[in-house]
């Protein structure tokens, strides 16, 4: 259970536009790497008085436009950011009191997983989290195997990460979070930059994990496909909760909020 109580976050951390082009105008920004959404990594957007309860096992979609504060919000779930006011509790314990517990209970997968891998090969990367916990080697091996099986990557532990496709990299990143055996899995814009088959395969794994009892929180600005599988939709706008409804009521509730909505619902 993740509980957010009256959370307020004020400043906008890093400089905005730090990632914009070059001075001479001669270097093209060839890929999507430069697109930074709200609060990506260092920077953060303001949040005002946000309260939210995410029960274990829930499939929650948090939507909102760029700059609405959704990345800032989820980074408080495991203490990557600290609120100015209010608090976040994971299983009843304030996050700041036990960061290790918060970070093992709430697994997080970031945008641009490519930049978040720490090892050159798949199994080595998935093992990174459990190694940090100081678990015995055979327990680590067991967890890596299970996590890779859960994302359909069993037997591919020795492959080089930089040779994998975008969808495969996303799934390895999910496995890296799963190896901590979290109760909640939070994914920040997991579908960005993926083609249709890759989106589907990632989504299918998430649905499967959720059926197995893991809570799933998907942060996105694009509600296509994902909404029909969710238990609940929360929409942030300007740092506040604008909508908090079951998905069936979503289309009515969305009004003219700036999110990409599903074609069918």
């Amino acid at each position, binding site marked *: 259970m993740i509980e957010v109580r009256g959370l307020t976050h004020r400043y906008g951390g890093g400089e905005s536009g730090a990632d914009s082009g*070059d001075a001479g105008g*001669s270097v093209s920004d060839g890929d999507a790497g430069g697109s930074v959404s709200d609060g990506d990594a260092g920077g953060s957007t303001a949040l005002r008085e946000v309260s939210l309860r995410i029960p274990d096992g829930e499939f929650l979609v948090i939507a909102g436009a760029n700059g609405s504060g959704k990345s800032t919000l989820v980074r408080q779930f495991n203490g*990557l950011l600290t609120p100015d006011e209010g608090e976040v509790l994971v299983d009843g314990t304030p996050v700041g009191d036990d960061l290790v517990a918060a970070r093992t209970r709430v697994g997080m997968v970031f945008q641009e997983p490519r*930049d978040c891998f*720490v090892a050159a090969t798949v199994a080595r990367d998935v093992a990174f989290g459990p190694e940090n916990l100081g678990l015995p080697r055979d327990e680590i091996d067991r967890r890596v195997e299970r996590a890779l099986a859960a994302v359909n990557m069993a037997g591919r532990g020795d492959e080089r990460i930089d040779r994998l496709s975008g969808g495969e990299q996303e799934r390895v990143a999910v496995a890296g979070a799963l190896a901590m055996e979290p109760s909640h899995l939070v994914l920040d814009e997991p579908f960005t930059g993926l083609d249709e088959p890759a989106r589907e395969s990632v989504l299918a794994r998430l649905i499967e994990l959720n059926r197995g009892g893991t809570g799933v929180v998907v942060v996105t600005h694009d509600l296509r496909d994902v909404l029909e599988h969710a238990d609940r939709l929360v929409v942030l706008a300007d740092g506040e909760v604008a909508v908090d409804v079951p998905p069936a009521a979503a289309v009515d509730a969305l009004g003219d909020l700036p999110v990409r909505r599903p074609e069918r619902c």
Partner: protein
Amino acid sequence: MLTYEPGDSVGHRLDARSKLLLQASFAAAAFGHTDPVGLAVLTGLTLALLALASTTPGVVLAEYRGVLPFLAAAPVIESLRFGAPWVDPVAAVDPALAAYRTVLLLALVAAYVRTTPVRESEAAVARLVPGKLGRLLGLGVGLVFRFLPVLQADLARTREAMAARLGDRRPLRDRVRIVATAGLTRALSRTDRLAVALRARCLSWNPTPPEATFGREDALALGLAAALAGWAMWPAAATAPW
């Protein structure tokens, strides 16, 4: 380029630390005995070690063909004289021996790289350097292996984009600046994401130690390393005033 080749040679079975130590003591012995006899002995040893690592001399030469001209430069320059007879071959002997010694050292490097997976090199660093320093250094080395191809791709795209718009006709200092700016910008933007990911995954000072792979063959390798180190000291010991 040199990369790890999976296999089951003696070289593959040795612990990375044994192989690093062996290289270091080999280097010491080579410096102590940069004479025809010493280098002949070490050449024999190098060939034996290469065979144990299922690496042929041909592979080594192909690998370093770009480096060899640079190695040849020193003996050539040293043998030149300002005045008749202009060339003094005798002066080139010592530099040539030294250059040959470098070739032997590079051959062992090739054997090491071809038999040692990244994770073992990383673990060797974490184990050889104690405490927090070893933790940071091991982590840093692992990250270098991970991000080298990523940043390489970044720069390759930049150079391509530059060439596509005829940027390669610009003055040299412009081209250097453009490539450097692009590389740095990308590296910095990746850094922030990486740092957050490290924290989210509980980066700790006391992780599970890497698996030890020390076996019987490692004992032999360490014995050989000790012998080489002893031999490296020998000329100094023999001429010492006691």
